Structure formats: structure tokens, C-alpha cells
């Protein structure tokens, strides 16, 4: 099967799914069945109102516990038993399944793109290679400007953060039922914020030495040490909550306006703004801030 046929099939599948998702309001449910504690993948009818959907967007894990039995189940459901691992408390679903599903999808997507790009590298670049070379060059210049010439190996870290957050943000505009932005759950941005703060502290210890790093907490005079300590960790909270709030706010506005106009035309433009523009901007801002935090520690 050549590439053109595959792309045509993919586009056709997306269009059919998009058209179907207007009439058939089903969602893909991946999680734990409440009664017997079995892992389940199935398409269920969506028995929720708009208010409940917003609530689920805000707290997907807590809401899944209270949700009742689905009215209709489409197709065949696949049940897996995990040796009673999940069935310790059958009334509680395991947390954040939606988030984990989206993160796995994003990871597989990035791996496939990386494989396709690296499969045939040439001096005269193909289109895909050209796009990623431009992206790499842009971030290399950015790293050189921000962190200096001898820290160019940070480009891979920076570009990885950017690509992951960016893909997580713009995957919400794919019109599959059940696709959400992974960043609209607080756990994903918070994890990346913790990682960024850890890298900052590691670079600080490596650059200054451990005792000078500890001395940095008592910077003007000693009684301010607790405030400095809290301030260091509020860095991670600040950048992760910024990403989370922007993405979740966009998602809720999209949901409300889409249900007002019955999913016709207008959500496409809103998706362009909230998905593409805000998503790209916030991914870039997260990357730049993580880099600036490192730069503050490196340059005295």
C-alpha cells in the first residue's frame, strides 16, 4: 500500500467519523467497569447534559465514579481481566484513564513521525525533514541566545518539551469522539512543571556547587529562607497552572459555544483560535519560561 492510498483512507475515515459524530453521540470509554472491576474498552451512548460534560471536563476522574450505567452499548465491548489488580475497590475507577490514553496516543504519534522522518535522511531534504530541520534550527538559535554557546545540548530537551506540549494541545482539534487535550487535566502540566523545576535545580547544583546552592536560599539574610524555599517551588506551580488554565478555559468555551450552535461552522473558527493559536503560544511560552529559569541559575 503506497502512501497516497493510506492518506486518502485516513482522510476518508476522519471525514466519516466527523459526520457520524454529529448524529451518533457516543463516546469511547476506556476504564474500569464499576460492578466487577474489569478493564473495559467500549463505545457507549452519551447520557450527559452539557452541564455534566463541563463538570467532566473539569474533574474527569472524580466524575467517572458517580456516572451511572450507560444506556446503550454500541458494538462489541472488550473486557480484560488484570488479576484483580483493579478490582480491589470495585466502586472506584482508576484515576486519569482519559489522560493516560491521550498521552499514549501523543507518544505513539510522535514516535511514528520521528521514524518516518529519520527513515531516509538525505542532503537534499524531503518535506518532512525540512520542517523538522527548520524547527530544530529555530530552537537551536533560541537556546544559543538564551543559554549561551556552550549549552547547545539543551536544544534536545527544549525541543522535546515543545513538541510534546504542542502535540498535546493541538490534538484536541481532531474531530474524533473522546479526543481531549491532555493538558486540560492538571496532572499532565503539573508533571512537566515538576520536571522543569528538577532540571533547573540540577543545573543550579551542577553550576554553583552544592554549598553555594544551599547558600542561595539565604540570599539577602537568613530569616527569608522559608520564603525563598516556597518561591523556588512556586515556579513549577506557576508555569503548570498557566498552561492548564489556558487549555481548560479554551476547551470549556468551545464546548459551551458548540452546544449553543449545534456544532455548525462556528466551532471550526474557534478551534483555529483556541487549538492552534493558543496551543502553539502556550507551548512556546512554557518552553521559553523553562529555559529562562535555567538561564537565571546559570548566569549570576
Amino acid at each position, binding site marked *: 500500500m503506497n502512501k497516497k492510498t493510506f492518506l486518502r483512507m485516513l482522510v476518508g475515515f476522519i471525514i466519516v467519523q466527523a459526520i457520524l459524530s454529529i448524529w451518533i453521540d457516543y463516546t469511547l470509554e476506556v476504564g474500569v467497569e464499576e460492578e466487577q472491576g474489569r478493564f473495559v474498552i467500549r463505545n457507549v451512548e452519551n447520557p450527559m447534559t452539557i452541564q455534566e460534560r463541563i463538570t467532566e471536563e*473539569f*474533574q474527569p476522574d472524580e466524575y467517572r465514579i458517580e456516572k451511572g450505567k450507560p444506556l446503550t452499548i454500541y458494538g462489541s465491548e472488550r473486557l480484560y481481566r488484570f488479576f484483580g489488580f483493579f478490582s480491589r475497590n470495585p466502586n472506584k475507577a482508576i484515576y486519569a484513564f482519559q489522560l493516560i490514553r491521550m498521552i499514549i496516543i501523543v507518544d505513539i504519534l510522535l514516535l511514528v513521525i520521528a521514524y518516518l522522518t529519520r527513515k531516509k535522511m538525505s542532503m537534499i531534504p524531503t518535506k518532512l525533514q525540512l520542517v523538522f530541520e527548520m524547527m530544530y534550527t529555530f530552537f537551536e538559535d533560541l537556546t544559543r541566545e538564551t543559554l549561551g554557546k556552550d549549552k547547545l545540548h539543551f536544544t534536545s530537551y527544549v525541543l522535546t518539551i515543545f513538541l510534546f506540549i504542542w502535540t498535546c494541545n493541538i490534538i484536541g482539534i481532531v474531530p474524533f469522539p473522546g479526543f481531549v487535550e491532555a493538558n486540560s487535566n492538571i496532572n499532565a502540566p503539573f508533571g512537566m512543571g515538576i520536571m522543569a523545576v528538577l532540571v533547573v535545580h540540577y543545573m543550579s547544583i551542577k553550576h554553583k556547587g552544592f554549598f553555594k546552592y544551599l547558600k542561595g536560599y539565604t540570599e539577602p539574610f537568613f530569616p527569608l529562607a522559608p520564603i525563598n524555599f516556597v518561591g523556588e517551588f512556586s515556579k513549577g506551580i506557576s508555569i503548570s497552572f*498557566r498552561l492548564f*488554565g*489556558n487549555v*481548560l*478555559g479554551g476547551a470549556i468555551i468551545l464546548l459551551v459555544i458548540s452546544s449553543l450552535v449545534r456544532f455548525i461552522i462556528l466551532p471550526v473558527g474557534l478551534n483555529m483560535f483556541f487549538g492552534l493559536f493558543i496551543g502553539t503560544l502556550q507551548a*512556546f511560552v512554557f518552553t521559553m*519560561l523553562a529555559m529562562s529559569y535555567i538561564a537565571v541559575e546559570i548566569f549570576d
Partner: protein
Amino acid sequence: MEVIVRAAALLGAGVCMGIGALGPGIGQGYVAGKACEGIARSSENSALLTRTMLLGQAVAESTGIYSLVIALLLIFATG
């Protein structure tokens, strides 16, 4: 009693969003105006200026985002 708590939470969410959006709005507009001045003065630096402007605006926006989070907490986690 619960109705009063619910109503107070909703009212508080509205007030929180309204007041919380004031500061970031003023700050972001100020930053954009200054960036316009800078670009008009030295247009060869416009890429750097635009990038710095967007970064500064995103940082200034964070208090608005915090108020959004608090408003969402008031709406969905109260009552």
C-alpha cells in the same frame, strides 16, 4: 441554606472573573503598546520584540488564569 451557599458561590465566581480580568487586561495592553513603540523606533528588532512581548504577556496573564481556576473551583467544587 444550601441554595444560599450555591448562589453565593456563583456570584463569587462572577466577581472573581470580572475583577481578576482587570489587571491582566491593563498589563497586557500596556505591554503591547510599549512593544509597538519599540518596533516603530527600531523595526529591525521586530522579531525579538514580538517574542519578548508575547512572553511578557503570558507571564502577566497568569493572575487572570489563577482567578479562572478559582472561579471554576467555586462553580464546580462548591455545593
